[in-house]
């Protein structure tokens, strides 16, 4: 477990849902794992407010991009597992290309060659 770092970055608006979809590409999992994966993949730079993950998951599920199932965890507690739907995969592709164009454009403005 890494120490709390002072140089963590707050998430950009709207990027959390995109990253949730991306992490679910690895397979069905629960909110705790999603938060861990996002933090680990960003080398612990991204500061995820863990409590914001669940409303986001419910929003994505309502849009039909995720499906969910309650399963008993190892400690015999109920945990909700989320999985990408076909629609969710398509949405991920759209958002991925949108993000590539956006981040590329911002980079060109900030650091003109």
């Amino acid at each position, binding site marked *: *477990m890494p120490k*709390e770092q002072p140089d963590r970055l707050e998430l950009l608006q709207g990027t959390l849902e995109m990253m949730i979809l991306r992490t679910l590409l690895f397979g069905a999992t*629960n*909110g*705790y794992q999603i*938060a861990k994966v996002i933090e680990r993949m960003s080398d612990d730079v991204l500061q995820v*407010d*863990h*409590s*914001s993950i*669940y*409303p986001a998951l*419910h929003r994505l599920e309502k849009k039909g991009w995720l499906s969910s199932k309650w399963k008993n*965890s190892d*400690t015999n*507690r*109920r*945990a*909700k597992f989320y999985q990408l739907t076909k629609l969710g995969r398509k949405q991920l592709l759209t958002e991925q290309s949108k993000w590539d164009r956006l981040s590329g454009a911002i980079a060109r403005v900030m650091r003109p060659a």
Partner: protein
Amino acid sequence: MFGWFHHKKTRDQEIDEELNYHLDLLVRERLEAGDSPTQAKLSARKRLGNKTFDESTPDLVVRASGDPAALAGTLRKTVRTLDRTTILSSVSTVEQQLAEQLSPRRFETWLLSLFSLVALALASLGIYGVIHYGVTQRTNEIGIRMALGAMPSDIQHLVIGEGLFLGAIGLGFGLAGAFGLTRFLSSLLYGVKSSDPLTFICVSVLLLSMAVVASSVPARRAARLDPMSALRQE
């Protein structure tokens, strides 16, 4: 509207359950990293953005002899010595819990009883009014009946019979309506079916006796009529 509310409620409950599970995992993670229980709880809460949500807290049930309310202080102290981070909140007796859970039911029942009492009073008043009006209208006829030898008890039976007849018609409509509508009440009922025969019989008897009581007042007036003056009235 109601469906939306219901949906919102279950959604929030689900998120609360998920957050509780998440909090537990975070606490365990910090404990394994070597934090003290207090520290682990604090940092786990911070990772959840210090958001407040409905945390599932364990309940403690204590069987006591004597005054249970006097035990609260002792219980608080005992729990604190066991775990400094745990506080005992909202101590109540089983009776208080029960009363709290039953109070909306009690209020609904009280309200429904009040409504039905008002309805019964209005129905009796209605029967009384109609029979009374009928008796004044038929004063002449009653005079003739008495002149021809009808006893006061015959007149009384005649008038009460009329009230009973009206009551029976109303009862018929009422029972038909009740059979059709009580199933909407079934969520309020406990331990009794919405088509409970005993209830229907008792209510029918009650309504018919109210009809008799309501019509007996004008019936006695009719029986006390003086045939001569009744005949003269036109």
